[in-house]
């Protein structure tokens, strides 16, 4: 057994063990932290499977962003009087469902054993056509050029999720967040060193995404990390209503996609046929900003954000 397969087996065992703990653990808070760890192990698995784009996305979005959102929601529950780190109650369904789930695993696992990898027809076609698009990263090529409609609808889902969250917000009650003391030197140092760095990494991921692993989603997630930091330190404060800039930023990705995609019709080209690499950069930049603002608003649970004036 080669070292590589050994690593794969260890990662696979970690996945199974961690998911078991996340699902059946006794302390909710700890299990949420373990879920973030689970996301990081998935991220490592992606890189082992030869998908670095997914590894980046999983680390930033699957583990980082989902984890931050969950921990924040959990804090809101606890601040609202919910039991801190509740245990797990025995369900009468545990045994029958456990047996059925075991059977499910056996059936899927048995089917999985018979899977044979074949050359991907669609993927081969993408790689053949890729040089014509001016892009070097096949995944970015699929997302923006070959299956642009999917990505456009994905931005729509993100927008609908934000509108849904706004709809169930109730009367806005901003500013209920516990703020960290910004006057300690550590927080100030963290802000001044980490915020520009995340900006730099986000822009790098965006620009690198056309030729190497990276892209708008990874960049947007990293930028959200910056937003989360600013919200947690009180540099950005939740606002009662969305300002014009916020609204424009939230719809920027979808708008850029629709305008450029539909604009192709005016030049007698098929819908969503992008006119060149500049369009890819433009749409990706707009998407990155939309993703970052949308996710930061979802994290802050507010309709808008305004910078604190000191």
């Amino acid at each position: 057994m080669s070292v590589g397969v050994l690593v794969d087996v260890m990662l696979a065992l970690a996945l199974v063990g961690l998911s078991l703990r996340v699902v059946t653990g006794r302390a909710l808070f700890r299990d949420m932290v373990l879920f973030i760890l689970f996301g990081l192990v998935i991220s490592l698995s992606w890189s082992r499977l030869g998908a670095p784009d997914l590894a980046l996305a999983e680390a930033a979005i699957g583990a980082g962003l989902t984890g931050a959102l969950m921990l924040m929601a959990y804090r809101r529950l606890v601040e609202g009087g919910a039991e801190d780190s509740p245990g797990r109650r025995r369900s009468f369904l545990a045994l029958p469902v456990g047996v059925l789930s075991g059977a499910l695993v056996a059936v899927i696992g048995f089917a999985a054993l018979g899977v044979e990898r074949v050359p991907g027809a669609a993927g081969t076609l993408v790689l053949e056509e890729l040089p014509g698009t001016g892009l070097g990263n096949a995944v970015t090529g699929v997302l923006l050029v070959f299956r642009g409609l999917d990505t456009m609808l994905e931005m729509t889902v993100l927008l609908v999720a934000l509108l849904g969250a706004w709809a169930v917000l109730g009367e806005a009650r901003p500013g209920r967040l516990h703020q960290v003391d910004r006057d300690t030197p550590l927080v100030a140092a963290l802000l001044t060193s980490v915020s520009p760095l995340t900006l730099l990494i986000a822009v790098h991921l965006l620009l690198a995404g056309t030729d190497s692993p990276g892209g708008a989603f990874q960049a947007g997630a990293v930028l959200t990390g910056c937003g989360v930091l600013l919200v947690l330190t009180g540099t950005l404060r939740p606002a009662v209503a969305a300002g014009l800039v916020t609204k424009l930023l939230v719809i920027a990705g979808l708008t850029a996609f629709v305008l450029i995609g539909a604009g192709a019709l005016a030049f007698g080209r098929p819908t969503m046929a992008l006119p060149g690499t500049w369009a890819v950069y433009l749409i990706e930049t707009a998407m990155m900003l939309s993703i970052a603002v949308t996710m930061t608003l979802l994290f802050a649970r507010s309709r808008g954000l305004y910078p604190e004036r000191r």
Partner: protein
Amino acid sequence: MSSTIVYLLAASAVFGIGAYGLIVADHLMRKLLALNVMGSAVFVFILTVAGVTPEGPDPVAQALVLTGIVIAVAATAFALALMVRMHEETGLTSLTGDDDDD
């Protein structure tokens, strides 16, 4: 034994574990964790059964999974918003109807 089959089997197990948790778990947050665990298993499954190209897994499948990851976090964010609002309105954190500090 290739590494693909290792991940396929792991994904099968993780999916089953997630399905179990989704049904049996009491706290809504844990149901959400289970749902996300199931989602990750499906993503690993998609990529490992997808076709291969000389440059790694099928880029179409990779883009599909990337889309899925973003959709999953959007859906999770909405579910969390619903959960927090439900707790504000009713004081409950589960669907069983019991008070949450018993």
